[in-house]
């Protein structure tokens, strides 16, 4: 706290050195919501709004023409007199319908060229519902998989591998709260209900210094605040689930809220058919609930309270046997944020966040009761500042802050009991709640190095520390640490630098390097993301994951920003990676950490991206050529091998075509290299069973993955000013029914022709051609005409 106070006065002091400057600040809103990442352009310089729609830019005293713009809204040009006093200007952008100057797509048409950021993927959530989706469930994380450098963990999975990183190396944030498991039903659906989301941004390259705690990427998802102008109801009915969202002003322009829910019902529909069967009582469903309320106390103070609660609930019952299982897992997040404008240049946000991910398994079979609990719960306190100032006529946008996280991890707490005649008797169990603290301080500055704004940099430094506390028994020293006793301390410095040089009005070079540390880790024994993957803390045996990534890119826009082209190359390393040993056998009586082995990795690749942003036909084509390797002394005889994330070729094409106002068509095509697998070297027989000897890890591949999805969206009453509107989306997933493997295994079988026994590889595909239909609707209190 002392440090933040010191920083505060330091910045106020800097401010006084540039007293000849004046500041333009305010918020930008549109359609009843604050706008994140809206562009403020002033000649060769400019800035963007932060997470709360707030902007601030300090300039030499003068008169300026300022251009405000944001996706789907009309551009607003204003002449502002900054010759004497600071100006606070809150801007409301109008939706583009029937207005002359319209930004059809993109925050600012040339932002991809002008911004120093690289490796940033803003997801077009507005297009999501019109694109084909698995079982008609629009999913922002799956949309991300069609971007260069990002691939799916497995067929149908919403898990992401970003530039060779593992699924746990993505920092998934929902209103700043960490979501440790972002998947429902084996990861086939993500936990994010698109109706409740305002903006989703993925940082796959050098993440800004205000983010940390993960090695690979940041997926920053912001929920809508709740419309401050009018009441709205939005929803959708699909073949496996339905969604409903209600939002509106509790006090117009002061207090608004949003409440959004989603629930699956496929099994509820099937239950009557299970009655009386061996599976009577079996059910599985998931639900999500998003809620948010915000209150504007004044132009300087605003409070946000938001939360997410989602669960997967499985009850498996077999009435004819002593077999009952219940699995209950999900995330709970709660975020309280207070925005305070200290002065026109200095903005503060204080956040108190709680997030919890847990899974519980309770089961009984063969006279044995099992209870297993695993999860992570964090208390997270953050203080973030935005400060703008302009020395030597070059605006600086400084962010600095601090962060404290208290982790409570239960990697795998289990309890097994034998069901006796009269009582249950404890057999064995595994405890091991872990407590750890994570601390971070960061500062970053975005500024131009020259007056023409050709050369700009984004320099940041994040200092982190981590402490594990007892109770804990060290597997290294066999020391017993008591509750609250410090077991191990780690620290790390994470410099982050991005630089951009503008070659022409429509092209630029960018480069960046970022160092990252990760103190909590997910360990998995599968190629996908599963609820049973466990989170473990760094200990004296498990060291923090550390890595760095360097990237270089060329960005060019064509035809007055109608087309966007980029070429990005990257190289990155991963240290202290964790995996299970090659002789790992899942046994609940074993010490978990003893099963781990440690190694390192690297990844490199080249990403090509072509996007068409305007016109009836929009979309993008992306191609990534990359390699991802791991090197573990205890795996593959210490030789490097392709990681499960390795996809040498990854191609995606996504397009949306508006035939007329009533009909819109979408298509997605994906082609990626086959998953690496470990081939069988030979088979041998002992005790009348065939056993397998494996070759080098991941030295073979299954066949390439490819799929085409198509959709057609019908808007029965387009361009009307009705308060109620709806659309039908008809989609076909995997239209040519390519049997893409979800997983494979080996089996022995008799060849019907030769009569000989042979060991064969088997692949299992889950998703053949799947048609779906979804009805989406919207109701708004005021018609579009009245709003204008």
């Amino acid at each position: 706290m002392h440090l933040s106070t010191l920083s505060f006065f330091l910045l106020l002091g800097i401010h006084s050195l540039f007293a000849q400057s004046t500041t333009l600040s305010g918020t930008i809103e549109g359609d009843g919501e604050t706008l994140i990442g809206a562009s403020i352009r002033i000649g060769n310089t400019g800035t963007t709004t932060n997470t709360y729609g707030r902007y601030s830019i300090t300039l030499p005293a003068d008169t300026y023409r300022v251009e405000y713009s944001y996706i789907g809204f009309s551009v607003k040009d204003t002449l502002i007199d900054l010759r004497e006093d600071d100006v606070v200007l809150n801007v409301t952008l109008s939706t583009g319908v029937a207005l002359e100057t319209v930004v059809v797509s993109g925050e600012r048409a040339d932002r991809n060229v002008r911004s120093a950021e690289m490796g940033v993927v803003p997801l077009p959530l507005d297009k999501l519902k019109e694109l084909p989706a698995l079982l008609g469930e629009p999913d922002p994380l799956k949309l991300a998989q069609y971007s260069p450098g990002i691939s799916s963990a497995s067929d149908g999975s919403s898990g992401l591998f970003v530039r060779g990183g593992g699924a746990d190396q993505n920092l998934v944030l929902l209103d700043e709260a960490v979501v440790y498991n972002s998947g429902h039903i084996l990861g086939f659906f993500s936990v994010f209900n698109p109706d409740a989301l305002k903006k989703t941004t993925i940082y796959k390259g050098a993440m800004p210094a205000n983010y940390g705690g993960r090695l690979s990427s940041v997926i920053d998802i912001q929920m809508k605040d709740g419309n401050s102008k009018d009441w709205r109801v939005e929803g959708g009915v699909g073949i496996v689930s339905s969604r409903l969202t209600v939002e509106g002003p509790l006090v117009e322009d002061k207090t608004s809220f949003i409440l959004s829910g989603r629930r699956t019902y496929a099994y509820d529909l099937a239950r009557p058919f299970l009655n009386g069967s061996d599976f009577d009582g079996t059910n599985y469903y998931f639900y999500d609930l998003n809620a948010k309320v915000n209150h504007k106390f004044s132009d300087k103070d605003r409070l946000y309270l938001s939360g997410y609660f989602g669960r997967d609930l499985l009850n498996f019952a077999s009435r004819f046997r002593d077999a009952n299982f219940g699995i209950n897992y999900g995330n709970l997040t709660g975020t309280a944020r207070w925005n305070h404008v200290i002065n026109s240049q200095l903005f503060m946000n204080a956040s108190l966040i709680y997030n919890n991910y847990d899974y519980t398994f309770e089961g009984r079979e063969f006279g044995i009761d099992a209870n297993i609990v695993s999860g992570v719960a964090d208390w997270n306190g953050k203080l973030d500042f935005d400060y703008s100032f302009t020395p030597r006529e070059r605006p600086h946008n400084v962010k600095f802050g601090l962060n404290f996280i208290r982790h409570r991890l239960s990697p795998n707490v289990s309890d097994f009991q034998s069901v006796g005649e009269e009582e249950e008797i404890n057999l064995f169990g595994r405890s091991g709640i872990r407590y750890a603290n994570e601390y971070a301080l960061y500062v970053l500055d975005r500024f131009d190095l020259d007056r023409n704004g050709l050369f700009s940099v984004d320099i940041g430094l994040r200092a982190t520390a981590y402490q594990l506390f007892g109770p804990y028994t060290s597997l290294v020293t066999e020391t017993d640490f008591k509750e609250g006793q410090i077991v191990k301390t780690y620290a790390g410095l994470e410099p982050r630098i991005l630089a951009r040089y503008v070659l022409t009005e429509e092209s630029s070079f960018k480069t960046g390097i970022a160092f990252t540390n990760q103190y909590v880790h997910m360990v998995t024994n599968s190629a996908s993301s599963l609820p049973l993957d466990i989170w473990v803390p760094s200990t004296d045996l498990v060291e923090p994951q550390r890595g760095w990534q360097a990237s270089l890119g060329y960005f060019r826009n064509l035809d007055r920003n109608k087309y966007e082209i980029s070429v990005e190359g990257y190289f990155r390393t991963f240290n202290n990676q964790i995996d299970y040993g090659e002789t790992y056998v899942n046994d609940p009586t074993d010490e978990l950490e003893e099963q781990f082995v440690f190694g390192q990795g690297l990844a490199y690749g080249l990403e090509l991206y072509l996007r068409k942003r305007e016109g009836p036909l929009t979309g993008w084509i992306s191609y990534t050529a990359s390699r991802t390797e791991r090197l573990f002394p205890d795996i593959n005889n210490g030789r490097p091998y392709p990681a499960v994330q390795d996809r040498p070729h990854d191609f995606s094409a996504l397009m949306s075509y508006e035939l007329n106002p009533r009909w819109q068509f979408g298509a997605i095509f994906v082609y990626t290299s086959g998953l690496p697998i470990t081939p069988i070297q030979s088979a041998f027989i002992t005790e009348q069973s065939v056993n397998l000897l494996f070759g080098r890890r991941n030295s073979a591949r299954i066949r390439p993955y490819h799929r085409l999805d198509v959709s057609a969206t019908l808007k029965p009453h387009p361009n009307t000013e009705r308060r109620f509107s709806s659309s039908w989306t008809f989609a076909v997933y995997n239209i040519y029914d390519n049997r893409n493997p979800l997983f494979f295994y080996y089996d022995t079988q008799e060849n019907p022709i030769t009569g000989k026994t042979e060991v064969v590889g088997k692949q299992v595909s889950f998703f053949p051609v799947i048609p779906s239909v979804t009805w989406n609707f919207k109701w708004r209190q005021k018609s579009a005409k009245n709003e204008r």
Partner: protein
Amino acid sequence: MNANLLIYKYLVVIALLLMLSWSCEENFDVPIIPGNRPVIVVEGHLEAYSTNPSDLGVQPRPAYVILTKSVPFGQAFDADDFEELFVRDAVVNITTSRNRSIPLSELCLNSLPPSEREFLINATGLNSADFAQIGIDFRKTDFCVYIDLSAGSFEIGDTFQLNIQADDIELTATTTTPIFYPIENIDFRVPPGDTSFFSGTTLRQMLIQTAKPDSLNNQDIYFRYFTQRNDEPLYKGNAPLAGFRSVFGGKVLGSGTESVALLRGEARDSTFNPGGNNFGNFRVNDRYLVKWMNIDEAHYNYWNSTEFNALNQGFFSSYTLPQFNIEGEGGIGIFGAYTVGFYGGRVPKE
């Protein structure tokens, strides 16, 4: 019951049901690793008895070693090919820690008279049902074994050294007959579950209690078991807490004084179905035999890794490498000793 395994199993069930049985399974061509030379596979077996097996009419097993060659992936085999896998004319010897040297002699089924053939089949625990799962009728093959014709008995607590000279390759291994922790009590109950379903049933689930010292924290005690029902062969057990493997560490038995369900071993052929209603149960009046064994850690690791690998591939698990205790270039496998106790009787109605 290995809970994680069961969670996986039922998640798969649910996912499959959810996908309305859309999933599809088909063969795929796995690349053949070039230049892959066969290795010698050792399956060595030695038993020391805590009680006299003959008391329950069980024939004691002599020490034996089966030597075969591995089959390169992609190469199909039938009974004729299987016959070719046997390593012949090897010199096999076991030395005890008491400096007793036991040479093993090579015997092949085709060269034996019928009565000795049955002796050899029983001595090596061969059964048709398990062989059927790999498409082989072993009675039609010239099955070869290196066996201790002296049928000498072995001491509990001894260490044994195996030496093999075959095809210009020398292989060695060491194993022990560990301390025996007996079953103290065997009981039967109606399988827990839906009482209306099990009302009047003759199905019975076996419960056992063992004497196992807590002071060892049960870390270094390893068990394996087989069961026999009526005139069926001895089948390796399916310990639910160990993920239906036949081996488990002592921890899964708790402190040893509790009753723990012990599932009947079943043939691992197409009828093997842990989700079946009758899986692992006996019937009233069945004759039962439990072969209860303590094994050392290396021995446990071999069966634990191979049986786990056989049951855990695919979406939920990476591969697991088998752990061998055979030393020497060009050889893999297990030379494992058992300390054995037998328990038998008839399944009571009450």
